[in-house]
Structure formats: C-alpha cells, structure tokens
C-alpha cells in the first residue's frame, strides 16, 4: 500500500482532525463499505473530493451574502472484465451508494469490453507536498465579516464603491481503490478579489490573488491597489486601436497564458491539430477545439508520433513554463482523479517545447511508459528582474494593462485569442503614465506576444482556478483591434 498521507508528518497540520470534511480513515471505511455492497469480481476505485468552504461577498461597500457549505463529492468507478463505468454522488449513505452501484451495473451490462487490458494499480509514487494551512481553515465567519468592515473603510471614505469576494476552503482529496492504492491529502485554498468603482461608473480597479494560506493574502494591500486603480482610471480617453507596446501585469499575463496552458496536449498535436502540431491541417475555420471524441485509436492508426513541435523553439528563450506539485508558492495535489501521479514537468524550457501531456493509454501504447503525463492546469512561468516601474520608464509609447477578461480562442492553430482589457488601462508616453484610456478589444496570441518579449519581472501568484505563478511582461506590437469601452 502506498500512502502519502502516512508518510507525511501529521504534526504539520495541527488542526487536522477534520470535522468539516472526510478524514483519511473515513475514505478507507467508505471504500470498504462500497466493496461490501458490490458484486464480487468488481474492481472499485474512488475519487473523493470532500469540501468545506466559507465565503463572504460584498458590494456597494456592504455585505450581501455569506455562506458555509460542506459537500463530499465521490466518483465511484467500477472496472469489470475490461469494462468500466462511473457514477458521482455527494451523499454517502447506503441508499445513495446502492443506487449509484445499480446505475453502474446497468452501464456495464451494455458495454462491449475494451481490447486494451486494464488493471487497477496498487501503488503509485507521489511527490511529497504540503497543501494545508491552519490559518485558512481557522478563518471563520466572524473574522471574515470583521475583515470586510476594515477593508471597505477607505473606499467608503472616498465615496467609491467596493465589491469583493473572500473564500476559504478545505478539501480532503483522496483516491482509494480495491487493489490497495491509498492516496489522501488534505488541502486548503484561500482566494480574495476586490473591485472598486466610482459611483458614476467611469472608473474601475481590480486586484485579487489566491493561496493555500490565508496569511499570504494581504487583503488590505489588494484593496488599496483596487482603490488606487479606480481613482486613476476615472474618465478615460479613447485612443486609436493599433499595435502597442504593452506592460502586462501578472494577472494579465496569466489571463493570456491560460489558453496556452490548457492546449499543452500531445494527442491533438499528433493528429495535426492545434498549436503544437508540426504540420497543422489547414481548415477554413479552426475555432473549434478538438474534443474528447478525437480518439487515440485514430492517432495510433495514422502512425502517430513525431508530428509535434517538441524540441522546437516556440517562445522567447527567456521563458520557461513548468509545473510542480511541490512548488512552495503554488503547490497542488500530486495525484489526478484516476490516481495517476501529477509529476513535476517542464513544458517549455528556455523557449523550447519539451513536453506535452498525454493520457495513460497513450503512454502505454505509444511510449511504452507506465504513467500518463498529466496537465493539472497549474504552472509557473519564469521571470526576469525588470520591475514594472522600469518597464514603464523604458516605454516610449505604450499601455499598462491590469487584466484581460472574456478571453477566448478564435483560432486554435495559432492560439489567436480575443477578449477585452479591464479594470485599469493607462497610456504610457515617454516613460511615464500619462492618462487612463478606454478599454480595448484585443486580438493576440500568447505565442506571438511571448515571442515579442521586451522584459520580464518577478513571478508572483495570481488568481486562477489552479495555482499560477506568473511574472509581469513587457511585449511589443500587441494587437488592440477596436475600442470596447465598458468599464
């Protein structure tokens, strides 16, 4: 039996006698109970995400809602004679489990067995990491409400409107199976974001961040940043669309980088689809992402292998994009829902594409490797030593961008994206910020932008669904295509 839980020192989470999510023991007991209710011969695997979260929301300087939720989500997967089916539940009583097993049974009966033999794995080797923070788990409703009172004070004093959100959560992550695999890791997450607007609706500032540890989040500082951005963005002027040198704050870099991170997949590349295909198939319309229906079998039958840009220079050589479950600034769960390990990986190293993610079936059939290469969505982008102030000083004419919203891919092969700038956009002239400007719709690809790199700053944690540690970047010839003057 492999257990990262048993190998980690329990003393590292002093509060870890979970009373708001499932314990390691409870996960084991649950598996035993489900096995006891299942026909013999069924191999059973559970993915458990048992979550507590507490939140506080405010707008127009006043608290609007606060909530506290507990939910144990469990995916029961059954393998039987090379067939498999799963069912998700969030109530773990006998009736709910029996009902889930009955659904699974009906699905198994109807299935044709797969040609590829499958065996549950009894052990995996996971990276040791620490995802727990007592401070996050302890931030209760009283503290959250008290904090809000402090945070909105300065916005209120300046007759501005603060709206924000604070959420802390604790998750018991587990994968257990009937072959003996046992992985369990408790995790905390904290996120904070705030928008300050002026009552006339002409200025808006935003700041936000996530961390496992609430103490890493300086809510007062972020509130001050949002307020400052709001004040400095009031009454923006319209300037001409066109190509600009832009200084992207870290949040804006991550907003543009997100489609690139989620595209780091090998099977579509080998099929000639997407940005990482060496010889992309030309089509008139390429804004449809390849979906799950693209089968591995097609890759295999087409000969597969080789038709990707692995080994090629794809970004500026100053850029390295990596992921590591043990990254101290952005750790994440070292196993995937199927129990396979999330490994440390360098996707892009000094601008060269090194790896693309692949599923276990691809690893087994095409690479003769046992494990998949998972892409959790978490990443770190390397930086440089230029501060945003230095970038501004170096800019003859350009824009300072707070963040990008509504980002979507319009061309999958080039990763050309569109979206709008939001919550603070300023014109830089002769090395100085001169005035707020109206938002733009942009049309740009992270592949082009990060090949047009002028400078990088120090990477910091930003607000994204999975941990992202990203630097500010100065990029030339960023394409702003039209005015999009929403505030």
């Amino acid at each position, binding site marked *: 039996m492999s257990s990262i839980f048993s190998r980690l020192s329990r003393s590292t989470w002093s509060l870890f006698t979970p009373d708001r999510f499932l*314990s390691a023991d409870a996960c084991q007991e649950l598996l035993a109970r489900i096995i006891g209710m299942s026909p013999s011969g069924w191999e059973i695997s559970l993915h458990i995400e048992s979550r507590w979260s507490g939140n506080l929301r405010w707008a127009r300087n006043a*608290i609007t*809602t606060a909530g506290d939720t507990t939910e144990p989500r469990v995916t029961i997967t059954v393998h039987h004679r090379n067939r498999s089916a799963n069912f998700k539940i969030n109530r*773990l009583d006998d009736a709910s489990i029996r009902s*889930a097993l009955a659904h699974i049974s009906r699905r198994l009966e109807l299935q044709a067995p797969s040609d590829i033999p499958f065996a549950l794995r009894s052990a995996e080797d996971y990276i040791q990491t620490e995802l727990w923070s007592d401070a996050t788990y302890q931030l209760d409703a009283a503290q959250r409400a008290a904090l809000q009172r402090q945070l909105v004070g300065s916005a209120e004093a300046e007759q501005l409107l603060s709206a924000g959100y604070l959420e802390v959560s604790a998750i018991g992550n587990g994968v257990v199976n009937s072959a003996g695999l046992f992985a369990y890791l408790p995790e905390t997450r904290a996120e904070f974001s705030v928008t300050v607007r002026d009552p006339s609706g002409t200025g808006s500032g935003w700041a936000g961040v996530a961390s496992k540890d609430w103490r890493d989040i300086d809510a007062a500082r972020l509130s001050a940043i949002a307020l400052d951005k709001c004040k400095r963005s009031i009454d923006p002027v319209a300037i001409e669309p066109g*190509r600009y040198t832009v200084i992207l704050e870290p949040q804006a870099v991550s907003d543009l980088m997100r489609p690139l991170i989620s595209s780091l997949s090998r099977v579509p590349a080998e099929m000639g689809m997407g940005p990482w295909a060496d010889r992309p198939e030309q089509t008139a319309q390429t804004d449809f992402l390849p*979906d799950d229906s693209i089968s591995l079998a097609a890759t295999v039958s087409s000969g597969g292998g080789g038709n990707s840009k692995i080994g090629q220079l794809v970004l500026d050589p100053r850029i390295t994009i990596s992921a590591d479950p043990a990254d101290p600034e952005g750790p994440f769960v070292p196993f995937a829902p199927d129990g396979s390990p999330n490994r440390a990986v360098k996707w892009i190293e000094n601008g060269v594409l090194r790896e693309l993610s692949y599923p276990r079936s691809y690893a087994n059939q095409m690479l003769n490797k046992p494990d998949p290469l998972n892409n959790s969505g978490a990443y770190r982008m390397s930086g440089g030593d230029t501060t945003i102030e230095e970038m501004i000083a170096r800019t003859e004419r350009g824009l300072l961008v707070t963040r990008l919203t*509504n980002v979507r891919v319009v061309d999958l092969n080039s990763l050309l994206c*569109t979206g709008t700038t939001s919550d603070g956009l300023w014109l830089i002239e002769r090395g100085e910020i001169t005035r707020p400007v109206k938002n733009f719709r942009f049309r740009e690809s992270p592949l082009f932008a990060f090949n047009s790199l002028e400078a990088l700053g120090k990477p910091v944690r930003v607000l994204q669904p999975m941990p992202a540690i990203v630097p500010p970047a100065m990029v030339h010839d960023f394409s702003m295509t039209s005015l999009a003057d929403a*505030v």
Partner: protein
Amino acid sequence: MSPTRRDFLKTISAATLSLAGGGGNALFGLLPGIDLYPHAGDPALKELAARALDAARAAGASYADVRFTLTRLEGLRIPSVHSYQHTADQEFAGVGVRALVDGAWGFASSTLWTADEVARLATEAAVQAKHNAAAGRRRVELGPPPAPANGEWQTPIRRDPFTVPLAEKIETGWAFVELASRYNIGARNANLGATLDTTWERQERTFASTDGAFTSQTVYRVTPSYRLSVQRPRGTGRRSSDLLRPRAGGWEVLAEAPLRDEVPRLVEEAFLMTEAERIVPDRYDVVIDARLMTQLVALTIGTATELDRILGYEANAGGTSYIASPIDQAEPYAFDTGLLNVRANRSQPDGLATVRWDDEGVEPEEYDVVRDGVVVDYHTTRELSTELAAWHGRHGLPNRSRGCAAGEDALAVTMLQPPNLEMLPGADATTFDELVAGVKKGLAICAGTVTVDRQQLNGEINGELVYEIRDGKVVGTVHSSEALFRAPELWRSLKGIGGRGSEYRAGITVRKGQPEQVCHFSVGAVPALFEKVAVTNKLRKA
C-alpha cells in the same frame, strides 16, 4: 403517515443516534443506516423543513427559508454510429438554509437531510447573518410577503428520461448520427460526420419559508446538440441542428425531433461553408437569424436588465450593465428604436427558467421589460424590488418581486437569475427571406455565438453559416467574419424585424455570482435587420 415517511424518519433518527458520539462524519452523509430518501412532495420533507425554520427563528431570524434539491444528471455523447460515451452520470443532493437577522443574510448548506443537520445549518446561517449585520452598512428589506405558496408543480413531460433504458437512448442517438453518415453526398470529395451530445437533468426542489410557503417542484431539462461537419481538402464546414435546442421537457424532446427532415439541409449548408470566401472587413447591412438573435436579446437585454448587475451587486463577479440605474434616473432608459419589445416570463411551457414558484415562494408574473424601445421594468427578487419602490411607484407598477430568485441547487445561495424572455414579433408577417431580400450589400448570419463584455455593452457576433448578399440575393458564403457591436448603437441601427411565424426559442446559459452559479433561461426572438454593422476578419490582427 405514509410508510415512506415513517421509515425515513425512523431510520434517520436511529442513524443519528448511533453516530451521536461518532465524531463529525454524520455531517458528510456517512449514515450507513439510511436506505430510503424522500422525494419532492414527501411529507417527511415538510417535517425537516419545519425543523430548519424553527431553528432559524430560535437563533433570531426574522425571515428564513430552506431548500432541498435532488439533481439527477446524465450526459451522453454519440460521436459515431457505433460508439457512445457518458459525459456525466450523477445524482447530487443539497439542503440550504438562508436566514435574515437584523437585516443581513447568512447561508449554510450541505448534503445531508436529517433533522439535526438542518437545525445546524439554520443556526449557522443565523450566526453568519449576525456577524454580517454587525457591519451595519445595509439593511435588507424584503417588503410584504407574497401570498403563502403551497402546492406541487412539475415540468409537463410525457416520459421521464431517467426511466428510459440506456439501450434505447443509445439506439435513438445512433439513428440520428446515421442520418448524416448515410447522406448521399454524390461525387463530392468529402468526409461527413456528426456528433450528438445530450444532457438530461431532473431537479426535485422543495422550498419552505417562515412566511408559510411549502412547495415541491420537479423541473426537467434537456440540453441536446447535434453538430455535423463536412471536411474537404479546401476546408471544413460545420452546422448544428436548429431543431435540437436546450429546453424544458422529457425524453420526447430528443426522441421525437424530426431530424430526418433537417439533416439534408444542414449537410448542404455545411458544404456551402467549405466553399466560403474570406470576409472582406467593412460595414455591412446584416440580417441575423432568429436563433442567433436569441443570444443577442439574452445578453444585451436579458442580463443587462438584471437589477443586481445594474446596481453594482455583481461588480466583482459577472459584471455590471450598460443600462443606467433607474434609481438615479428621471427618464427610463430608451433604445433608439420602436421595433424592440421584450417580455419576461417564467411560465413558457418549454422555458428553462419556468417554475410555478421561485426560490422565495413568489409566483412569477409576465411583465414587459422593453416596450416600444423603452426599458419599462427590471428583473428583481424580493430584496431588490424594495430598492425599486419609488421607481415602481412613479411608473404605476406593482412594487413586488418579479419572481427571479433562484439558486442552481440548494447548495448554492439564492440570487437573481434571468427569467425567460420573448422578443415580440413585428406586426406584419415578415420572414427571414424577406429581410434578406431588402438588403443591397450585406450579410445574413445564421446560428453561432454572441459574446459580450462585463457590462453587456460591447460584443461580437460569430456566425456558423454566413451568407453574402448582393441586391437582395444570396451570392455565396463567407468565413472568418466577426460582427462587432456596441449594444445601444446596434439597437439604434435596427431597421426591420421578422413577424409572427418567424420566431425561434433557444436555451441560454450564463454564469454569475461568487461562488459562480449557472443560470438557465429560454429566449424567443425573431430575425432582424441591422444597418451598417462593422464586420471584421476575426483572424486578422490590428
């Protein structure tokens, strides 16, 4: 007392007792003893609801409500004639209690339906509310309570999709996919494929409030999509079914869809798109088909008239609205066109937002949102309607909730969600083709996607099928086009709309709130002609 209720209550008390000393696991649904759960309408839920409301009152709540939901969801993808895969298969339960104490809200939810747990949630919600009230910056007023809602309601369906055997679902899907693969494309060099994706959802909802409401509703939704593609050496053309659309309903929505009649047209239209020319960026007169218009109405009228967005309650999440707050304005917001009329309802039989009572026990009414181009009302909940008291008074409208309170399930807090909307057809019987016939140099854009920014102000229209029009005639198709708009200017440029018979109703999904919730609603619209719309090549940079 029914056997169901007796067994349930007996079992839960035994289970709760046996685990009383067993630590916190009772909180997570780890109650081995339970082997029967009540469904919507079961009196056992009334007893549990009473427990929650009593506990909330005892903890100081001036108002409280409790919701129970049980959500069954199954998603099936048919990517070819001989394969299928489940994209989702799940059943999630929830119970949530909302308490108002000293004018502030608190909310707590979990998945366990026991007397002790609902009492804990009620107490927790009230405690949160007290902390929030201490901030004292805003006092929530709910206004007079609605007439106590009592009863049961269900989406009218002919067959519950969850009673249909999986084999029947798969065979039905295969037959649809086969319509494309067996289509005779003649001597044309092309690959033709189709994928059917369907999600069925059944949500049982029970609601009770300290105002005396107790309602049970079961909502059925189906989200089908049928996409086909034609691949040729020079390009790929894609079309999706107009007939299969997200709506409320049962198994019959999919099973009885006359796709056989539609597929030949879709295939030929996809072929046309493989021959499309690249768009020449310019200003064009644009006819937008009724299907794409539903999105334009949903986003630039529907979500833009949500009062919470307008007032800034969504500023840090889903965004605000370009429509000015009615509270500060003497004059109502006016679009510079008399052709635009939009009504809201939560009663359209196939509407995704259709319910008998909302999640505050309010029975929604139909109301005008835009009349002759003027915004005449806004979507509200109970607390938001009190903020409109003066405005409603000035305009002679009843100052009560428009019935838009909803949570995606009981785990999520109640918020304002959009109702169903209907853009009213024009007085005459103008058709899509007649609108096209009136265009000298332009485009006709069919199906596709509309996106908007965080103020619902600026947006893009991406068509699935885009015809080029010269002198009232279709002369070809174009690809890579993207029409850009600013909502007030776009509506000002509205020059014609379709009449009765040209309506199309679509299911729309938007996200808002923190934590984010999914909102489903239906929108009906007619085709429309807009003058001099900027159309760009979406693949071209500045």
